[in-house]
């Protein structure tokens, strides 16, 4: 009977902790999906040979294989939870942990869970394919060897030397402790879980000395609850939870899938979006012909909060997609290639290679990349959707991406340039410098990029041309706002005073000026004035122009 109770409580604890792990993982489902986009498993002999030839190649290969299951985050999370649960079972059995002592077998797993969730912006800089599974797999293998050998040894010598076997197995089978470093920056704390996991196993033989072996139910329940709470707290606390980071990940996926309304909706949830979020949002506005709403939907980006010393660069985050969406195909291809070279080939890079090759009509090249994507488990569908584009122009012309991007491709003057690894700066400068836009989309874009960078001169030229090209159309309120501001406050190269502004906009601008002048006369600092006026005027170009002074391009 007591054996049954013991088995029952062991199973219940396992179930509780497994469910806890699973929930913690699923709370980061947006991240898990992007994880598999930032990894790659190809079912070819070449891929296996190359991967297996590395140090710890087997774990990397298996890790890459399993990481692809995060394509369905619930499935990947289930697999990872299963590996951890088996690991706990192996530890309990190998170290002969009884009753409440079994709870401590979850400590190494907690460390592994944290190692999966605390990656944050290092996601873009890691050079560790299969990271999310490979360490858990190698740790499980160490525990398996410990369990098997200790069982065998115990038959002949009734002493528990699992700790010794664990040490030997660990040094034989482990992967190197991962280091998180890039040019001059490193984050040693992220390596800590990989030290805590094996170290906590070595403490398991000592757990027996803790006075918690009491089998009374209430003590057991209390201990389980406490440790479960600590487990959840630790994994939640150490997970990377920056809301902008997660919003970026969701927007990244939405942009990839051309879900423009979702992109805009996500951006509007954020009070202080990052520059990348603003760029994504403006891409979505541009592709839905709503670019003149860019300031009314929030255009004040901030630097991403990486949580440590890591400086994040948009080019590395999603520079290739940003360039692609603005029709800069060569630069998109370049950054997909640069990032693949620096941080390893990923699904994301391969898909961008395909996109660029198709847009550039390099169909032989596209076929090559599609052939590789066809060897993946979850992205072959994406590849097969695009295969007809190589042979049937109609399939290309009717695709959402082509429809969205092709109006930007008519800017067809080739120039030689460099972007100093700053896609946002390059795009804003490039488009605001275009004098003769060939499509309405480009026409809006060149005006809006001039406003985005507060290039007054370029705006005035573009506005003048716009008005002349659309004599019978209503000029978007944004352009009127900017023209009103610039004809009044800056030395414009073109006289805009005679333009028939919308009286409502004129009145609102007058009101903006009056409030601003009043507050300024009172000696209120600019930042405070900005905060005070944000509620009523935060949706205007005037507010952006006066108060958004932290435009730091990264």
């Amino acid at each position, binding site marked *: 009977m007591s054996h049954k109770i013991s088995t029952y409580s062991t199973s219940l604890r396992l179930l509780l902790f497994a469910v806890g792990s699973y929930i913690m993982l699923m709370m980061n489902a947006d991240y898990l999906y992007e994880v598999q986009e930032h990894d790659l498993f*190809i079912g*070819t*002999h*070449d*891929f296996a040979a190359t991967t297996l030839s590395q140090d710890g190649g087997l774990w990397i290969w298996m890790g890459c294989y399993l990481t692809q299951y995060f394509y369905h985050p619930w499935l990947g999370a289930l697999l990872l939870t299963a590996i951890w649960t088996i690991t706990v079972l192996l530890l309990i059995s190998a170290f002969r942990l009884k009753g409440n002592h079994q709870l401590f077998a979850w400590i190494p797993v907690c460390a592994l869970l944290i190692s999966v969730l605390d990656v944050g912006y290092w996601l873009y800089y890691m*050079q560790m394919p299969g990271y999310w599974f490979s360490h858990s797999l190698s740790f499980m293998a160490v525990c398996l060897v410990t369990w098997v050998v200790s069982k065998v040894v115990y038959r002949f010598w009734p002493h528990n030397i699992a700790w010794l076997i664990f040490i030997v197995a660990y040094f034989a089978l482990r992967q190197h402790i991962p*280091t998180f*470093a*890039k*040019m*001059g920056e*490193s984050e040693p704390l992220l390596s800590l879980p990989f030290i805590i996991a094996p170290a906590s196993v070595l403490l398991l033989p000592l757990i027996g000395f803790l006075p918690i072996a009491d089998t009374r139910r209430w003590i057991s329940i209390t201990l389980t609850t406490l440790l479960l709470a600590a487990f959840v707290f630790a994994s939640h606390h150490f997970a990377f939870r920056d809301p902008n980071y997660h919003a970026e990940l969701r927007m990244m996926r939405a942009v990839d899938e051309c879900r423009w309304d979702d992109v805009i909706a996500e951006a509007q949830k954020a009070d202080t979006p990052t520059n990348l979020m603003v760029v994504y949002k403006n891409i979505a506005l541009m592709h839905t012909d709503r670019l003149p709403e860019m300031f009314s939907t929030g255009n004040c980006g901030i630097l991403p909060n990486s949580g440590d010393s890591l400086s994040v660069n948009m080019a590395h985050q999603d520079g290739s997609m940003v360039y692609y969406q603005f029709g*800069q195909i*060569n*630069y998109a*291809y*370049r950054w997909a*290639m*640069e990032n*693949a*070279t*620096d941080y390893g*080939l990923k699904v994301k890079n391969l898909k961008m290679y395909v996109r660029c090759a198709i847009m*550039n009509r*390099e169909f*032989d*090249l596209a*076929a*090559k990349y599609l*052939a*590789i994507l066809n*060897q993946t488990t979850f992205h072959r569908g994406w590849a097969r959707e695009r295969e007809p584009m190589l042979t049937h122009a109609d399939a290309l012309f009717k695709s959402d991406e082509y429809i969205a991007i092709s109006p930007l491709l008519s800017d*067809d*003057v*080739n*120039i*030689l*340039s*460099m*972007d100093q690894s700053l896609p946002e700066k390059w795009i804003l400068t*490039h488009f605001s410098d275009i004098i003769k836009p060939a499509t309405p989309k480009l026409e809006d874009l060149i005006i809006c990029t001039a406003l985005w960078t507060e290039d007054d001169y370029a705006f005035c030229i573009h506005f003048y041309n716009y008005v002349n090209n659309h004599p019978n159309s209503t000029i978007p309120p944004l352009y009127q706002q900017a023209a009103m501001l610039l004809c009044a406050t800056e030395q414009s190269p073109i006289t805009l005073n005679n333009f028939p502004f919308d009286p409502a906009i004129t009145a609102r601008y007058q009101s903006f000026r009056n409030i601003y002048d009043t507050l300024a006369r009172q000696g209120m600092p600019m930042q405070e004035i900005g905060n005070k006026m944000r509620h009523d005027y935060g949706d205007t170009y005037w507010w952006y122009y006066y108060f958004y002074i932290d435009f730091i391009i990264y």
Partner: protein
Amino acid sequence: MKRFSFTNCKLSIAIAAIIAIASISCTRPTVPDTYAMQSRQPHIMPDYTEVTIPCNLCPTNFIVTEAGKQTVVRMSAGTASYTYGDGMKAQIDPDEWEALKHEALGGSIKVEVFVKAGQGWNAYTPFNIYVAADSIDPYISYRLIPPSYVDYSHLALAQRNLTTFDETIFYDNRPFSTADKGQCVNCHSYQNYHTSHMLFHMRHNNPGTLIVDGDHVKRINLKTDSTISAGVYPSWHPTLPLIAFSTNLTGQTFHTKDLAKIEVQDLESDLILYELDRNSISTISSLPDQLEVFPTWSADGRTLYYCSAHFAYQSDSTREDELITRYKDIHYNIYARSFDPATQRFGEPRLIFNADSLNQSATLPRISPDGRYMVFALAPWGCFHVWHHEADIHIIDLNTMQSQPLTAINSNRSESYPSFSSNGRWLMTASRRDDGNYTRPYIAYFDAQGTCHKPFELPQRDPYHYIYYLNSYNRPEFMIEPVPYTADEFAGQARQQVINATYNGQQSSDTITTDGTHHDEKSTTFTRLSETS
């Protein structure tokens, strides 16, 4: 009486099944009895139709890229005839390949391709693989590198045995690359096809030029205060312990629309001579308005050929901008200077090929071992033709000074880095014809009459290799022997203390005038002769 055992029965069935499967898998595909004849040759990849191969080449495995799921390929020559087919792959048994080549020596192997399409079979017009009696150098080497832009990560120098499929890495940059600082490795080069005297450069982390000089390996710093950079593009003198290098200040910029994607340009470049025995450097050519690059020795070591572009900056303060805005104005010509091995002095420069007059740019000259021919890459501008789709290989008969494009070896995509095998009968180029972005070695037969034949792509054991492989084969070079060091041994040598080369002054004064014209006007006339192949 023996009792029936169910376990034994199961075992027997299993063994029988294994034998059956094994025998099925060993069974040769049979040529279908009935088929529909197609009046064209099949599409295969790599394209080995009507190519000429050396007698010592490994099997030319290929994929049939016709619509279908199963192929049968029959290869026959003389009394030898074999069939192959694994899905759409034809992977040839090495022993049978030897038999086929033996029978076809000086003639051809006939290749018939059958493809199962739906319920029936299609047959295609047979093609030939011609087997030349001339052999090829048993090894080539190349750098494996993604077609990357500014950044680099894993680079390797590899050698490939052309008679088998064996490839070995002889230098890998990973031991010297950290997250903070990587190591670039480039410009492997050999003295007269021998690896006993060879070199390659290491840049950034643990920099230096690793020079194998007989039994010694030295790590040399070729940068001096008097030269603009360390040695870059090398050329070993064929017999003497001398290496000509260019020195270059190189930059990259990016095309927004052009499929060339990258423009690699030299802001400055000169030529230097490195004397191994004295560990000293002297300047061969250094004029401010000339960009000298790509030195290459003649086979007798009495002439140094090189490329040079006349480019006068209009303002010193905007040199980089000028280089970018005027990139189409940079045209390299090919020059030659005599060299006296006794005095080690160079003669006056002679213009060999005036590409500028054709609004073209000639780079990467190489001389045939018999000294009669020069091959080079020609494109509308610039020096880095691997990225120029228009780049083609051209040839000059140095006896007649007539030049012509080598049509047989060219494609509508980039061809660059030509080189002759040691017997002069094989011409290798780095071609991007497969997909426009990834460089692959293509080798063409260059017969005794100077006719170039259709090139073949370096064969691979798995013919799908080129589809899935995402590295370029950069700077393919012939070698008559393997590199004598392993990657580990070279890594050990690379850690040795670097030795600084000393600067020994100017070799001789240049006489190229600043407008790019030349004292010796004996140059080629550009003719586009049709070529038979």
